[in-house]
């Protein structure tokens, strides 16, 4: 295999011509090897003009992307080196067509027919998304030559845009990009249609999946469940339980506070400090209605509150008031006739 130097930046044109010549030699050499995939790949490459094809295979980013499995990555960075067919297949499998400055996507022009299947709509989309992608992609390579190639790559990518991909990383990263970018560009996986309708559908599905993930984090206990239907069931249960809790609490409030009132102004003028998040200190008497425990159990609520809400008026409010006043007159200057409770308000201030 002939190894080439990368060439200086000034001699870009000459070097590329040189490389292209050697490239075609090596391609023909490789074409003789009996591998169908490779053949398809290289004929696809040969369709491209030579310097651009050279850039395809030359890209140092793909070298960096591949990292461990292909050991001669570092050689490849500057030299055009075909160690083995399998190595090239691997590199090609991860090669990124979206070559911005250090693209994070890997692409593979896998079969010759894909290059011919590129629709103009996709091309435009791709070209427009490519500058955006180059912003969002992580800079894998700080090679200055990459930046110069990227300009030429934009032309090349127009042709190789909608190729089918094998690598899952490409699909995942493209899904992430589809989330970030204003322009929807989704990578088509192998065997999937590439027309714009299914692309839009796929983008939509990915949006929905992202939102489902957010919901799973919100709803406790949803992380372990797999399968969107079950997760949705769980979410529905959670929403229902929250709504029931609100109803139950408002019922309790309706039953509780016919007398108690508090001075709001003093609370909100000095609204600072420990508020709702702090726990309510048990500095007062135990509850009047021991059966009605706020324990977050929806079914208990439903069984109990009917009973309690009807019972409370039977107990009699005066009794309750007396119980309030006697142990807590230091805390509550509670008066059944008046409606303002100043110490109450202080307590509430601390609570809220």
């Amino acid at each position, binding site marked *: 295999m002939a190894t080439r130097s990368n060439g200086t930046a000034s001699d870009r044109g000459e070097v590329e011509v040189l490389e292209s010549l050697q490239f075609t030699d090596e391609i023909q050499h490789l074409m003789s090897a009996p591998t169908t995939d490779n053949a398809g790949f290289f004929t696809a490459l040969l369709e491209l003009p030579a310097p651009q094809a050279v850039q395809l295979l030359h890209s140092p980013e793909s070298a960096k992307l591949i990292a461990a499995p292909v050991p001669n990555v570092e050689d490849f960075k500057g030299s055009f080196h075909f160690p083995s067919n399998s190595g090239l297949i691997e590199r090609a499998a991860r090669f990124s067509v979206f070559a911005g400055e250090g693209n994070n996507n890997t692409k593979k022009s896998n079969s010759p027919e894909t290059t011919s299947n590129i629709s103009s709509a996709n091309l435009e989309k791709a070209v427009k998304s490519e500058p955006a992608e180059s912003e969002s992609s992580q800079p894998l390579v700080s090679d200055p030559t990459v930046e110069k190639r990227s300009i030429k790559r934009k032309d090349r990518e127009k042709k190789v845009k909608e190729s089918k991909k094998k690598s899952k990383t490409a699909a995942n990263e493209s899904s992430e990009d589809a989330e970030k970018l204003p322009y929807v560009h989704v990578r088509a996986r192998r065997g999937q249609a590439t027309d714009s309708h299914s692309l839009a559908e796929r983008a939509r599905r990915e949006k929905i999946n992202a939102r489902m993930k957010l919901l799973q984090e919100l709803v406790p206990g949803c992380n372990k469940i797999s399968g969107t239907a079950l997760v*949705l069931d769980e979410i529905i249960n959670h929403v229902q339980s929250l709504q029931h809790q609100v109803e139950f609490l408002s019922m309790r*409030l309706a039953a509780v*506070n016919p007398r108690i009132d508090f001075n709001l102004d003093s609370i909100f003028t000095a609204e600072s400090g420990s508020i709702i998040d702090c726990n309510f200190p048990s500095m007062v008497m135990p509850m009047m209605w021991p059966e009605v425990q706020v324990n977050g159990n929806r079914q208990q609520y439903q069984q109990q509150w009917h009973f309690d*809400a009807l019972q409370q*008026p039977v107990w009699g409010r005066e009794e309750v008031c007396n119980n309030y006043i006697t142990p807590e007159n230091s805390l509550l200057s509670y008066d059944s006739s008046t409606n303002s409770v100043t110490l109450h308000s202080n307590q509430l201030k601390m609570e809220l």
Partner: protein
Amino acid sequence: MNPQHLNASSLKSRFTRRFLRALTKINAQKPISSSSPREIFQRYGRIKAAADKSMANSVRSRRTWSRAMLWKLRSRSYRQASSGRRSAVKTSTTTSHQAIRKKTNHEKENKPTKTGEDQVGFVVQADELRELVPGGEAMDLCNLLDETAHYIKCLTTQVQVMKKIVDFYSL
């Protein structure tokens, strides 16, 4: 108690303020002797409406569910307040109801054709969710999930605040 400085305009504080104001208003209206279950039930309805209203107002109109909830509450209060003008009010509300229902029917017609493509089998749950989340009838799945997430967040703050108030009152 760890004194932490609460963001003065957070959802929780906004809701708390409005809800407490509404509570005091309700208490001021019907001062005492609400010992009959019916009156308690009435108060319950009012308090629940106040809670929902204050929550929806804290969110303003930034969310579809809050707009729908405010609209529902307002239409209900209009209907209760003005029995004389009920016919006029009802027509306006019913037409908008019908508009929403038409839209959802239209969407439902589209859905069976599309189920093979997008909604991979959770159409039933999506419909249930639509019933739960206010204003969810006229939303596609993507926005519905968004609204559900925000709605869950607001509901949890509502429950927390009301729990604290109830605990405070019951002691």
